[in-house]
Each structure stands twice: as structure tokens, then as C-alpha cells.
């Protein structure tokens, strides 16, 4: 606008020779004092400023875009290997397990996972489906991982930790296209475009990703195939609109459509005991999120947000639980006479609606308060999994957090969340921490926090039951899960002391902590007899009290310009005792055996290392090394062996990406070798071999 005015004035100056007619020529050509008296909206208002790591109430790991790039990862789950004490393993090529504090089973139930504040931890089983997430790894700006309970800030189920993924703001101003091709059928493409404007910005990402998964471990699975190929297509968009200087409306939308292979057996009328028929699971996911931020002066932000996530999964196959001959999976007494093929379905439609009002307020220069109220509804239609065809759970929460700088050197974070959970039970999750700056560079932190994990739907209302053929007059069933209900939330109490140090002026930091967490009433399996079922159904009960203690540390070291090293280390021990005594001796025996095995669910030592180096001439090197000691899930037969993993990434940048001086047009070609050390890596699943995998990524920015 200003430019046009200027041009107009120059034109008019050329046409008319009177100076008076063209006063603006001069007015626009020198800086006016208006630049100094310009009124500006408060941009970095209270809610936009994050706490530095030395002042957070919990231990926190931050992974930024550069680190994600350096890892060469194409699955978001792999990035979490950079969190001390975090477990990342694969059940198969498309089912990663990301869990803090070891693994009890294939689901990580004790961690909240948020994307831009949207909870993607799903209510049915209590899991995160990383593969079909409508989010491209290239759109992640940074990931903040809170290590420890954080209900006061992140809501319910923030029991052992919180993963908070923050996506790039719509600050894209050039179109980017990227293609990746490599071994194991890796074929990904993505395109990203956007625009930055005066009042509104937008970003749109389109992506498709997929591979053919891992290889079967023939030593164990004989010649069974491993059907774990997957493909997901997605669109993800963010629009930021600023109607006034004090209002920002962010709209985020996403949709993905995914298909993944499951099962390892071909259905054949002559084979018995087939449960896992080869088939494809189809999943579509979507989300819609609206957040409105109003800045009432620099010290007072009001934010109203609403989101909906939807997930529709369809998994249907014909299985032959038992046919005519005795099979190990069936009770020997129940050899069914009538061969049959039964439709087993695992379909679910999930809708989550969440609304929250939050205020961030600087009540004094040394005191910041965040408080809010929220409500959530989880509606699930999954007659194949739940006792009722349609389940509707609601929860309500109120939370407050106060960050009070008592003296310039000491800070208290005190907060709590009160919730009325899905089962109508009221709980309060408090947290208090004291951070003391020994010097501006050295900080000590001590904190105690409490959080609850609400039971998942499957634990409270699960019912997986397939009717089989009659044998004589008796109706047999294949009854896998039969939840008795009446559960209470698990409770976690965490205590920790930590040290956070800044080592130099170029951003090197050291962060160490010792922790002791107790989780009471851990919900685990309880077998309930069903005389009609060919398998003994599982129910859920509060079975254990467990503890976790250990040490964790992160060193971020800047070796020089464009050269960084991150080293993470975690040392942890765990143990459990049964929290109940069953009248049935065999159940008591199994409880005790589980409790004894509990200590194996955490790897004693785990470590990761990431080195990134920028060579002159636009060449970049990334080296990621990951180590996990032996670990065994409670439901696993054999332990996961000690696992070491090396990833290498070499990239050559060109154009504006290389010199930073060029105007537009640039990009890079990157070669990634995952698992460079071995061609036979095993982790969570011993039936899936992770071979060395090489892929090439080309990115072009127009």
C-alpha cells in the first residue's frame, strides 16, 4: 500500500511540477518519527512465552526441527529415542511402541500425547496410533517431552510423562516438495505450501508415506509371512487469522486415510487355530481444531479452544479359532466338531470433543498464573470391543498453575488439576516444585507431583466375544475379553531432584535428575472363567503397586558453529508387589509371578547420542546411536535382547539452503542409513527382523 502510494507520488511528481501537490514524496522517503511512536500489539504475551528449562516444574526434553532432521527419521516415533528413559520399540513395521518407564505391554497407557494441545491418546485401548496420524514429520517445529506427572499443566492421564508435539506455524512462504525412496519399499512424497499475509497466514501439507515393513524372523515364525506393509495419505493445514491486533484465531484441520497389513496366516479350511488371518486394516482419521487467543494487554491472555478428533477403523477377517483338531491355542477339551470360519471384526468409530478456556495472567512481575476449565466427551461405537454398542464418556476439569518467583534466585511452581473423571470419580492432582538458581547458570530443582490414569474403555467395559458353532446343544464362544468393570484410576506419585546447568555461552547445557515414582493400583489382567468359551476371558483389576527409581541425564553440547552433540542416559530400576490377594490360589500365583517379572519391564540402562555437523559447502552429517538394555514386557514370552542401533544421515544442500545468501530456490539431497550396524535387529517383537534400511530423500524448495 505504502509502495503504491509512493509510486503514485513519484508519478505525480513527474507530471506536475508543483511541490505542494506532492508533499507525500518526501514524507514517505525519510523515516518519520511515526516509526518510533508506532503502537504495537503485544506479540510475545504471557501465554506465548515458554518457561526456560531451568524454571520448569518437571524435567523436560526439547527436540527441535534441526535435531529431527539430523536423526534422518521418517517415523515420528523414532524421534523419541532422544528422550532419556524413553522406550521405543516396534511390534511390527507399522506399530511402534513409545513408552516412558519401560513397557508392560504393547500399549503405552501412562503417557499423555498432545499435538498442538490436542490429545491424540485414544480412549478405546489407551494408545496412540503413530502410523496413521494426520501429521507429517516435516511439519513438526519442536517436541517437548515432560518427564514426570504433569496433570496440573497437561490434563488427565499425564501420569508418567507428556509428549507435546508443536507443529510449524504457517510461516511457509515457499513451496516445498520432497520425495523419498528406498529399501523396504519406502516411498514417501510430501508437498508443503503456504503464504504469509498481513492478517492471515496459512500452510497446507499433503503427504503420502508407506513401506513394506519388516521381515519375518524365519527362525521363529517358520515360513509365515509378515504382513506389515502400510500406507497413509494425509492433508494437514493450519490457518492463522488476526482480525485485530489483540485477537488470533488459529484453525487446524487434518485428515488421513491409512491402510496397514495385519495377520500372518492365510485362511485355509484345513488349518486349525487360525486367529491372525492376513488382511488389511483401514483407518481414517480427522481433526478440526479452533483456538482463539485474545491478548488483554501483555500480562493477560485468554484462550478458548475447541477440537474434535475422529477415527474410524475397520478390521474384519474370517478366523477359524478351532476346527477339528486340538490346537495349542484351544483348550484341549474343546475340540470342536464343526469346522467353521467366523467373522471376527475389530471396528471402532471414535469421536472426541474437547473444549477448554484458559487464562494466563501475570498477577505481579514475579508471579504468573495459568488457570482454566475444560470438558471432554469421548464417544465410541465399537460393538465388537465393548459391552455396549455405543459408549459416551464425559469428563470435566479445572486447573490452575502458579509460577511464583519468591526471590530473584528461587522459583516455586505450584499447581493442581481437579477432575471428575469418566466414571464419575473426583480426583485432585497436585504438583509443587522449587527451583533454586545457585547462580544464573546453575539451578537445582526439587518437585513432587501426583497424577491419575483413568481406566480405558476396554479395561472398564471391554467385551470381545465371537459366537462359535454349537456343539450338541451348547453354544460355544471365543471370548477373549470380558471386563468386570468397577475400576478406579491408577495413582502416580513422583518425587525428583534435579540439576540444570548452562555450561557456556553458546548453549551447552547439562540436565541431570534422580527420581522415585510410585504407581499404585496398576490395572492389569485378571482371568475370569467362562465355561462356554474356548479360551479363558481376560478382565482387568487393580493388581499391583509399583515403584520406579533411577537417574537421567542429558548433555547438549555445542562443539562449534554448526556442530552439536546430544547425549542422553537413563538408568532405572522397577519393582512391584501385588496390591490384592485373590481367593483363587492360581490367580495369586500368577499375580506373584507378574510382580516378580515387573523389574524386567524397564531396561536398566538406556542411552542415545545424536551428533550433527554442518560442513562448509552445504554438506551435513547426522549420526544417531541408541542403546537399550535387555527388557521384557509383562505379556512377552521372551525378553527383548540388548539392542543397539546406529542411524547415519548425509545431506548435501544446494541453492539458498546452502549459502543462506541466495534469494529463492534451494533444497537438499539426503541419504539415510537406518540400523547401519546390523542386518538383524530385534526389539519389542522377536518375530519381526529390522534389516538395515537405506533411503534417499530429495527436497526442493521453489
Amino acid at each position, binding site marked *: 500500500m505504502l509502495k503504491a502510494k509512493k509510486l503514485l507520488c513519484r508519478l505525480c511528481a513527474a507530471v506536475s511540477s508543483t511541490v505542494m501537490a506532492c508533499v507525500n514524496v518526501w514524507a514517505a522517503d525519510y523515516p518519520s518519527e511515526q516509526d518510533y511512536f508506532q*503502537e504495537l*500489539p503485544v506479540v*510475545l504475551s504471557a501465554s506465548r*512465552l515458554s518457561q526456560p528449562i531451568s*524454571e520448569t516444574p518437571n524435567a523436560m526434553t526439547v527436540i527441535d526441527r534441526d535435531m529431527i532432521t539430523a536423526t534422518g527419521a521418517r517415523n515420528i516415533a523414532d524421534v523419541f529415542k532422544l528422550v532419556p528413559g524413553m522406550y521405543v520399540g516396534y511390534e511390527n513395521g507399522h506399530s511402534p511402541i513409545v513408552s516412558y518407564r519401560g513397557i508392560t505391554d504393547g500399549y503405552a497407557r501412562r503417557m499423555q500425547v498432545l499435538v498442538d494441545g490436542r490429545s491424540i491418546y485414544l480412549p478405546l485401548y489407551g494408545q496412540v496410533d503413530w502410523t496413521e496420524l494426520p501429521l507429517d514429520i516435516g511439519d513438526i517445529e519442536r517436541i517437548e517431552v515432560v518427564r514426570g506427572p504433569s496433570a496440573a499443566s497437561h490434563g488427565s492421564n499425564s501420569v508418567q510423562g507428556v509428549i507435546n508435539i508443536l507443529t510449524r506455524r504457517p510461516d511457509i512462504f515457499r513451496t516445498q516438495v520432497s520425495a523419498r525412496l528406498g529399501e523396504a519399499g519406502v516411498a514417501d512424497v510430501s508437498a508443503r505450501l503456504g503464504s504469509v499475509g498481513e492478517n492471515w497466514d496459512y500452510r497446507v501439507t499433503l503427504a503420502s508415506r508407506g513401506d513394506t515393513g519388516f521381515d519375518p524372523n524365519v527362525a521363529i515364525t517358520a515360513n509365515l509371512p509378515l504382513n506389515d506393509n502400510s500406507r497413509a495419505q494425509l492433508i494437514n493445514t493450519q490457518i492463522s487469522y488476526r482480525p485485530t491486533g489483540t485477537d488470533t484465531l488459529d484453525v487446524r484441520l487434518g485428515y488421513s486415510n491409512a491402510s496397514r497389513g495385519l495377520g500372518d496366516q492365510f485362511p485355509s479350511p484345513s488349518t486349525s487355530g487360525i486367529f491372525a488371518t492376513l488382511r488389511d486394516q483401514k483407518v481414517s482419521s480427522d481433526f478440526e481444531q479452533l483456538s482463539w487467543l485474545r491478548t488483554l494487554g501483555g500480562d493477560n491472555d485468554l484462550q478458548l479452544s475447541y477440537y474434535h478428533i475422529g477415527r474410524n477403523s475397520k478390521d474384519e477377517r474370517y478366523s477359524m479359532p478351532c476346527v477339528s483338531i486340538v490346537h495349542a491355542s484351544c483348550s484341549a477339551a474343546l475340540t470342536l466338531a464343526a469346522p467353521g470360519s467366523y467373522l471376527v471384526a475389530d471396528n471402532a468409530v471414535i469421536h472426541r470433543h474437547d473444549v477448554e478456556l484458559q487464562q494466563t495472567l501475570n498477577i505481579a512481575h514475579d508471579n504468573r498464573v495459568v488457570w482454566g476449565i475444560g470438558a471432554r466427551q469421548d464417544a465410541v461405537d465399537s460393538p465388537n470391543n465393548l459391552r455396549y454398542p455405543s459408549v459416551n464418556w464425559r469428563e470435566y476439569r479445572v486447573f490452575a498453575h502458579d509460577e511464583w518467583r519468591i526471590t530473584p534466585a528461587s522459583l516455586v511452581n505450584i499447581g493442581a488439576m481437579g477432575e471428575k473423571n469418566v466414571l464419575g470419580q473426583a480426583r485432585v492432582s497436585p504438583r509443587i516444585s522449587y527451583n533454586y538458581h545457585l547462580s544464573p547458570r546453575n539451578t537445582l530443582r526439587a518437585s513432587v507431583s501426583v497424577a491419575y490414569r483413568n481406566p480405558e474403555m476396554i479395561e472398564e467395559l471391554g467385551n470381545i466375544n465371537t459366537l462359535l458353532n454349537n456343539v450338541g446343544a451348547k453354544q460355544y464362544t471365543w471370548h477373549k475379553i470380558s471386563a468386570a468393570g468397577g475400576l478406579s484410576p491408577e495413582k502416580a506419585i513422583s518425587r525428583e531432584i534435579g540439576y540444570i546447568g548452562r555450561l557456556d555461552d553458546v548453549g551447552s547445557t547439562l540436565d541431570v535428575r534422580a527420581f522415585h515414582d510410585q504407581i499404585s493400583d496398576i490395572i492389569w489382567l485378571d482371568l475370569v472363567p467362562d465355561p462356554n468359551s474356548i479360551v479363558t476371558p481376560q478382565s482387568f483389576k487393580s493388581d499391583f503397586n509399583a515403584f520406579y527409581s533411577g537417574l537421567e541425564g542429558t548433555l547438549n553440547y555445542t562443539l562449534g558453529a554448526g556442530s552439536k552433540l546430544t547425549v542422553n542416559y537413563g538408568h532405572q530400576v522397577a519393582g512391584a508387589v501385588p496390591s490384592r490377594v485373590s481367593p483363587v490360589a492360581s490367580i495369586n500365583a500368577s499375580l506373584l509371578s507378574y510382580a516378580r517379572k515387573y523389574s524386567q519391564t524397564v531396561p536398566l540402562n538406556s542411552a542415545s547420542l545424536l551428533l550433527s555437523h554442518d560442513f562448509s559447502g552445504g554438506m551435513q552429517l547426522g549420526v544417531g546411536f541408541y542403546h537399550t538394555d535387555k527388557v521384557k514386557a509383562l505379556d512377552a514370552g521372551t525378553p527383548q535382547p540388548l539392542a543397539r542401533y546406529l542411524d547415519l544421515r548425509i545431506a548435501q544442500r544446494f541453492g539458498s539452503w546452502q549459502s543462506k545468501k541466495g534469494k529463492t530456490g534451494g533444497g537438499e539431497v539426503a541419504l539415510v542409513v537406518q540400523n547401519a550396524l546390523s542386518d538383524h535387529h530385534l526389539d519389542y517383537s522377536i518375530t519381526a527382523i529390522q534389516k538395515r534400511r537405506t533411503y534417499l530423500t530429495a527436497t526442493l524448495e521453489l
Partner: protein
Amino acid sequence: MFRQFAIRLLSSAVALLLTTLVQAGTLNVSLVLSDNTPPYRQFSAAFNKALAANNADVTVIESQADAPPTSGSTKIDLIIAVGAKATEFALTDSSTPQLSVMIPRTAYETLHETSSAKRSAKAASAIYLDQPWDRQMHFIQVALPKHSIVGMLYSPDTHIVLPRLPRGMSLNVKSVSATESLFAALENILASSDVLLVIPDSEIYSSSNVRNILLASYRQKVPLVGISQAYVNAGALCAIFSAPEQLAAQVVETIISFASGGKLPEPQYPASFSIGVNQQVARSLGIEMASPDAIRERMNKVEMGR
């Protein structure tokens, strides 16, 4: 006892004498404001207050550039032109000495070069609004000793003379032509600078751009050094600037010396300045930032040592 009485008597006599002297040379000042918006009103209020505080016998006739006063019978001794618009207006009067204030140096110089009314240099002077480069660089060096690469963005129409730099500091300057490339240039400059220094350039630092610039610089952990308290409030890490009150005090001093000597000093930068620091931003970025007073003290100490 007697001695105290004598001193009191003597000082009253001096005061009386001074008052008489000033009255004898009563000065008629025309205060021309560029417009009626808060910064000019603030200046006017501070100006009148400072005059009163100095007991200066000055008659002030206030007007605005867009609404000139009906030329009364009073003979104007000095025009105080507040802002560029007021200076432009004052330049139409070539006979009266004039002092411009609250005007950036380039604006003042451009206006004078292009003015049709040629006048003797002695009859016009200015107290600029902008801080001298040396002071700005010195400020960054003292406030942010670890931030030695100073990035600056400017549009091609902006005329800047690059400053001399204190030892250990370097400049990283990039020209930006359109909105489209602003963010490309910003990305580059943030990647290669320790701190981004705002310059008065309305094409780059428009209200809507400032938002994106602040967010980008915060994300890249490259702090912004602003040119006003408004920048500090918006999210800049710090700023050095002169408030209307500080400029008004300097103008009053200049008037008093003009009243006695009849001469205007050479155009000069503001003598006193303010420092703004956003401690919340500093903490969030993990930057150890001294208080404004401590920074000023250190600046003075280094200044004295030179």
C-alpha cells in the same frame, strides 16, 4: 546566624535579578506540533512543565502543522517544530529561527536539503529523536555482551549510513524488497545473527510484520532490540530510546541558552535516553539481562573510561 541570613539575602537578590533579566528578554515561542496525537501532546505537556520548573519566562503559542495559528500581532522569536510535519511547515517561514525536535536525523536533513527557502545554518537546528549509532552499538555491547553479530534489515528506499563498530562486534545487513522476500531475508538473517536491531523502516516494521518478525525471532532465539518502549512491550528483548519528556527537557535547556545568547547550537542527538528491558522475554530465552539502571551505569562507566 548572621552568615546564614547574609546568604539567604544574597540568593534572593540574585533570584530577583535573574527574573528581571529574563523578563526583560521575554521570549515568544511558537510551539508547532505535527498533530494532536499522544506523543506530541505528551511533548507539549512535558515542555510546559519543564519551562515552569525552570522559571523561564517564555510565552508559548501552541499550534498544529495542519491548523496554523492566525498570525497574531506577537513577534515570534523562535519556532519549536515538533516532528517532521511541523518542521516541514516551519520551513515555509524563512525569517524566524527554528528548532526541530522529535524528528529523525535523516528526516531533518532531507527536509532541509529539499527546502526551497534557503536559510542561514545558524537559524535552524534540531534535537533528533533517533539515538546515535555509537550509542546503540554501545548499548548492545553492554546489555548483551555475548551477542556480537548484529543483524539489520532495511528496505532499499531506506538510507542508512553504516555505523562504526566497537571492537568485537560485527554487522549483518540485508536489504529486503517485498513482503514475499521479507521472511526469506528474515530467516537468513536470524540464522546468521545473534541479535536483530530494529531500524525505523515502516516498510519492514509495519504492525503486521512486527508480529511475524517477533514470533520468528523468538522461535529462533535471536532477540530483537527495538526502538521504543512499545517494542519492548510487544516482545522485543530491550530498547534504547528518548522519551518526549527527555527531549522536552533538552529543548527547554536549549531555549534558555538561546534566550541569553541568541544562538542555536548545532543539531544534536538527544542528551538523555531511556532503556527498556523485557525481563520475561529475557528469562524465557535464557538470557541474563541486567536492569535498565545497571546497563546505564555500565554504559556511563565505559564512556568515562574512554
